[in-house]
């Protein structure tokens, strides 16, 4: 198991946003996380990636506990997530956004800048090449020196995937990557994911989505959350036939606001 969550609990005020959730994500798979709004999906992502502290339970990544670590420490271990609200650095260019995502840059250590300047320059060159090839894949080459703030919403989502590719983590955690993106772009996004990430060995995806087509298209396994609890787990086909799952979505639809 690449990622193991045991009885995760998160409490906000009086609300149990996560009420003892346990799940596993196997290496080299694509696991989907679905559920009605407010079921705790993003909260779970936040707990796993260290952006929120958990109030109970344990989380294991690569067999080591990560639930008390800072978000950057977890990211350095190979788990990187995207955000629902795009966090692209808008005052930096597309290329700079990609370059900053490269891991283990010697040039980021202030004291190494002068002593190992040759190594720094070499790494910059290599990272620039890698970033350029990612731009190619995304079809963004013409936008390389454009401010990320001038990109459309859909383009920014692609950029966040580009950053992930640049960072090359073992575990990709994607939070609603297709939300607000038009259908044609979604197709490209999926093709991109299949070719660059899923087909490669050693990459695992954990994805939150509302779009069931996307889920059925790429997920090996789907986990369903409702009100902070896991209510179902299985293949996309199994989940779509699951009565409890259907019931909870319908119940949400009927609930008075």
């Amino acid at each position, binding site marked *: 198991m690449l990622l193991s969550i045991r009885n995760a609990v998160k409490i906000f005020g009086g609300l149990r946003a996560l009420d003892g959730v346990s799940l596993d994500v196997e290496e080299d798979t694509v696991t989907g996380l679905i559920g009605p709004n407010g079921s705790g999906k993003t909260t779970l992502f936040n707990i796993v990636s260290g952006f929120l502290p958990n109030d109970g339970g344990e989380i294991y990544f690569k067999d080591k506990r990560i639930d008390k670590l800072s978000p950057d420490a977890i990211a350095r271990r190979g788990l990187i997530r995207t955000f629902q609200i795009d966090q692209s*650095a808008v005052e930096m260019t597309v290329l700079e956004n990609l370059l900053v*995502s490269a891991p283990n840059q010697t040039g980021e250590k202030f004291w190494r800048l002068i002593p190992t300047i040759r190594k720094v320059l070499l790494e910059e060159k290599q990272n620039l090449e890698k970033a350029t090839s990612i731009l190619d894949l995304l079809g963004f080459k013409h936008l390389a020196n454009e401010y990320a703030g001038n990109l459309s919403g859909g383009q920014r989502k692609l950029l966040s995937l580009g950053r992930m590719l640049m960072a090359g983590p073992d575990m990709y955690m994607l939070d609603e990557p297709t939300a607000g993106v038009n259908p044609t772009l979604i197709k490209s996004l999926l093709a991109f994911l299949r070719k660059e990430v899923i087909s490669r060995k050693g990459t695992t995806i954990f994805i939150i989505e509302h779009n069931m087509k996307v889920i059925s298209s790429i997920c090996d396994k789907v986990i369903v959350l409702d009100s902070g609890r896991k209510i179902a787990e299985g293949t996309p086909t199994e989940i779509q036939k699951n009565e409890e799952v259907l019931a909870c979505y319908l119940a949400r639809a009927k609930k008075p606001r």
Partner: protein
Amino acid sequence: MQILSFINYWVNITAIYSIFALSLNFQYGHGGLINFGQVFFLCFGAYTVAITAQLGVNFAVSIVLAMAVSGFVGFLMSYTARNMGGTYWGIATLAVGEIVRIFFLNENWAAGGANGISFDVKIPYFEMVTLTLAALSFGFTRAVMASPFGRVIKAIREGDNLPLSLGKDVFSFKKKTMAIGGIIGGLAGALFAYQKQFINPEDFMPIETFIVWAMVVVGGKGRDMGTLGGAIIIQIFYVGTRFAKDFLPIDSNTLAALRMIVIGLLIMFVMMYRSKGFFPEKRRLYKVT
């Protein structure tokens, strides 16, 4: 001859303020940290030099010491920025700036209290020194921001989430940002002390912070060239109006007040209409084949 010595003075003051403004621009323009107490770097740098110069310590060593002390102060201050965002930290730094000034005002043993310290060390070719150091500071900040290290600092400016999610130790970068800002600010303070040869707490009122903010804001946050431009513009304004009282029926107090009104309005105007400053940041263009 009067004109010549005046030009000398103006060049020195502008160079010193430029360095001071660069230190703020590094923290705010590049790093996104709002320091309303920037003057405390000036203060520590100046007092370190005053104390060491009195003891007969050599010029170069004094300056390095001043930079080290200020850099350390910056490093300590970064701990206060850890949990705090923009507004709160601005208020906190304003408070710290004042605490520092009142400390130096009251503590006679540390630095002469209200009477300050005076020393007699004349530096030959001082204008050459200040200009060179200003150029070096400019070059230094440009080089740092062009590096991968600078790139992370720029990313942090927009928020901690992205850099954290990419594995960057954001707090460590903030500590370094504040330390670098402190080192450069300390340099400005050191030169300020050598220029005046007499310093007391009155030299480190919040007004200094405000003036340097005007310089950074007018110049354009993030663009060091712009910061220099802002420093020169504000300094020209200051000097240009210095003699206004000889032509207008106003006393020096009113003149000082009027000048500050302009500074205040300038800050407001820029923030309202040109929040990126008059010399907006330029993006780094890469060749993409």
